């Protein structure tokens, strides 16, 4: 089986994340890559564990949650954007970052 494309990863992650967002309250049915997972989408740390679990289960991977969580931009907590998360999942799947 070929490794999923970036678009496939994005769609899968988006579908899972939407289950954990109050989409009616947020007024969205898609997740923009620039959206912050916690601040804009309202995903808390327990939701995030569930999301990672579903992604790991879907792709049969081990996502490096601790390392990724610790590498938050500017040393702040939980400010990762959707596109960063998708890129990290993609990198876990492919063993390499997204090529330009």
């Amino acid at each position, binding site marked *: 089986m070929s490794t999923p494309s970036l678009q496939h990863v994005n769609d899968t992650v988006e579908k899972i994340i939407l289950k954990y967002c109050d989409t009616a309250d947020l007024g969205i049915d898609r997740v923009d890559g620039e959206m912050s997972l916690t601040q804009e989408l309202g995903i808390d*740390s*327990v939701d995030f*564990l*569930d999301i*990672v*679990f579903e992604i*790991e*289960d879907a792709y049969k991977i*081990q*996502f*490096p*949650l*601790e390392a990724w969580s610790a590498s938050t931009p500017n040393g702040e907590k939980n400010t990762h954007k959707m596109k960063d998360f998708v890129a990290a999942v993609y990198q876990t799947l492919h063993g390499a970052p997204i090529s330009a």
Partner: protein
Amino acid sequence: MNIEKNLLIDSVDSIESWHSIQCSSQVPERAPVFDGHFPGYPILPGVLMVELMAQAAGFLYMLSSDFAKMAFLVNIKQAKFNGFVAPGDQLQADVCIVHRAESYLVCEGTLSKTDVVARAQWMLRLMPFDNDLLRQAVQRTVLDCLERHR
């Protein structure tokens, strides 16, 4: 079962590292919780049934990892209660890890008397021990329960 100290497991009966554990617990004849739950009809609260299974999962992790991290219950994904548990009942928890990651575990299990009285799936977050006192206390408690069966 020591409800006052929230140590709900009496003994570890069998364990398969990183996979499954079987624990026993006898519900005490008397405990303050039964005064209110319920007057004249004492039964073990459902949350304590889930807590017992979660503690068994914590024991499984601790013994499998040689007490590498502390396990915290962070999410009860589902729980179902099929029967009442009364003072004096003998309980058995059968718990397994269904998904293992670096910093969390997804576990599921059943609690039985002669029949299953509760089943649940939950998540444990694995975090470094906050201090040595905690680590030593947890280690002593878990190893005591393991020793009690042997």
